């Protein structure tokens, strides 16, 4: 049978295209249209066209620019940590150690805990008065006064990042571990016979073998991390002093708290462009590395 064109079976795609059009395509077009107007959230009369005004004022809005910085920094720190910890954990769990099966069984736990529960769990742990972290550090004699982890401008973002890394390093670890376990034994044996030491086997055989799956994990995580909303919103709502306000939170506040959907949409479009730019930079870096 030759591979025909989609022609005759196009009708089988129609339901999907219809749904995607209604809930993704059309809203996206509308966001673009809104971004050139001064519409409000609850307006009844049609809004007026304001051209590029929303976009120009967006780039002068220091609150918005710093929220982009927060999202970028969050993604950079969190994904880097998750990739390093996740890979190290996968390599460890691939060793023939006693009890390793038990740890592997629990590896999925952090990832399976819902994001909101994770956020609340860490908020309880970081609680300035009765939190487990303060109590633990105090009892160990590492601090002499309870710390307000989420309440101080210089510690809040780092504390949230730590909570996010706990949940998501496990995804990276599971993906890398799955790929390590499919690494053919003969390759390692052959290298041993050729006299390669442990380090050389790691660099020339193990690493190249796990890199494709590591890249999948990284792309998934980068996409999630730049979009970050839930964990930050539940833990600090963007505070203190807007130090943890991510771009997604900023757009949400502009559109739904300040009821300005015109400028909110413009911010959203810029955020989309920002995300695409980050992914493109990442892909470029990957391609260069391959060459």
């Amino acid at each position, binding site marked *: *049978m030759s*591979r*025909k064109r989609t022609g005759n*079976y*196009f009708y*089988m*795609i129609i339901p999907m295209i219809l749904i*995607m059009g209604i*809930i*993704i395509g059309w*809203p*996206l077009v*509308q*966001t673009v249209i*809104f971004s050139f107007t001064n519409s409000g*959230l609850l307006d009844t009369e049609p809004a007026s066209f304001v051209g590029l005004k929303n976009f120009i004022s967006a780039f002068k809005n220091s609150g918005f620019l710093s929220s982009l910085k927060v999202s970028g920094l969050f993604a950079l720190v969190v994904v880097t940590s998750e990739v390093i910890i996740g890979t190290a*954990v996968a390599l*460890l769990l691939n060793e023939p*150690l006693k009890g*390793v099966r*038990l740890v592997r069984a*629990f*590896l*999925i*736990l952090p*990832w*399976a805990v*819902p994001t*909101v*529960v994770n*956020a*609340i*769990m860490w908020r*309880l*742990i970081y*609680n300035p008065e*009765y939190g487990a972290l303060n*109590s633990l550090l*105090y009892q160990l004699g590492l601090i002499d006064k309870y710390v307000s982890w989420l309440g101080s401008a210089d510690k809040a973002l780092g504390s949230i990042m730590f909570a996010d890394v*706990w949940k998501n390093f496990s995804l990276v670890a*599971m993906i890398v571990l*799955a790929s390590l376990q499919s690494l053919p034994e003969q390759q390692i044996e052959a290298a041993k016979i050729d006299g390669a030491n442990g380090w050389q086997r790691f660099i020339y055989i193990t690493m190249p073998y796990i890199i*494709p*799956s590591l*890249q999948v994990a990284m792309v*998934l995580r980068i*996409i999630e991390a*730049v*979009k970050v*909303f*839930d964990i930050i919103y539940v833990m600090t709502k963007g505070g203190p002093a807007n130090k943890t306000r991510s771009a*997604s939170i900023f757009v949400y506040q502009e*559109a*739904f708290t300040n009821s300005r*959907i015109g400028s909110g*949409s413009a911010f*959203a479009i810029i955020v989309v462009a920002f*995300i*695409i730019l980050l*992914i493109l930079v990442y892909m470029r870096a990957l391609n260069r590395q391959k060459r």
Partner: protein
Amino acid sequence: MKKLRFSRILQYFALVVLMVYIIAPFLWLVIMSISSSTDLTSKPLHWIPRQLDISSFKELLTMGVNSRGEMFLNALRNSLTTAVTAVTISLLVTVPAAWVFSRYKGRKNLILAAAIFTFMLPPVAYCIPLYKMLVRFNLMDNSLALALVYCTIILPFCVWLIKENIDDIPLELEEAAIIDGAGVWDRLMKVVIPLLLPALGTVALMALIMAWDEYFYAMLFTSSKSAMTLPVVISNLASGRQSNYNLIAAGGVLASAPPVIIGMICQKALVKGLVSGGVKE
């Protein structure tokens, strides 16, 4: 040989540290949920509860008019119906589409690119028009509408993974069916779907976990016990000023139970499903 033994000891040490890192935060959540309020508000903390206190579980799981239990149990039901509806809709429309994309190339790249592109978009890119749409059609605070909105996240994910899995089913099997005179639906229902079932199960489980996890849209589009999902109710519970930490923790434990249990039972299948999608590219 001595050096080797030393590195083994290091590895065991790292293994213990890792186990503590994985378990400790969640174990503490479980301990908090069965501690009494006085144990949780003493300085320094009582790490091991002086007496077992399961009153917060009782409170959350007991139906009563305008009680926390009513809120929580309704949220449990809403989370379940929303997730199941969203995943059912997504699978129904993506399986035939994914089959066409897999068997008849040509348009494949374009649609796949579109799916991956929507994967990259943040919900804030279309939440504003979706909000206006739901308000206009009087669909705010409605589980079915919320399920449809969840398809924005789940549908692209399903079409991508299902297509990858259909690619793995040999075309020859379908060709044999064609020779026997099978039509399109026979090929799909009698050849492809039976072979696809295990993968479909994995994709469905992952999609269910994704929907269970969703917070942003639920927070925006629901406001009462008739549609609010668990993440929204739990975060509301936690943002109150009162300090019944054991109650908050119990809510967290209950909401985590389904995905954690499913995850620990089906870990292998879930990871395989996730890896199969991307690595072949």
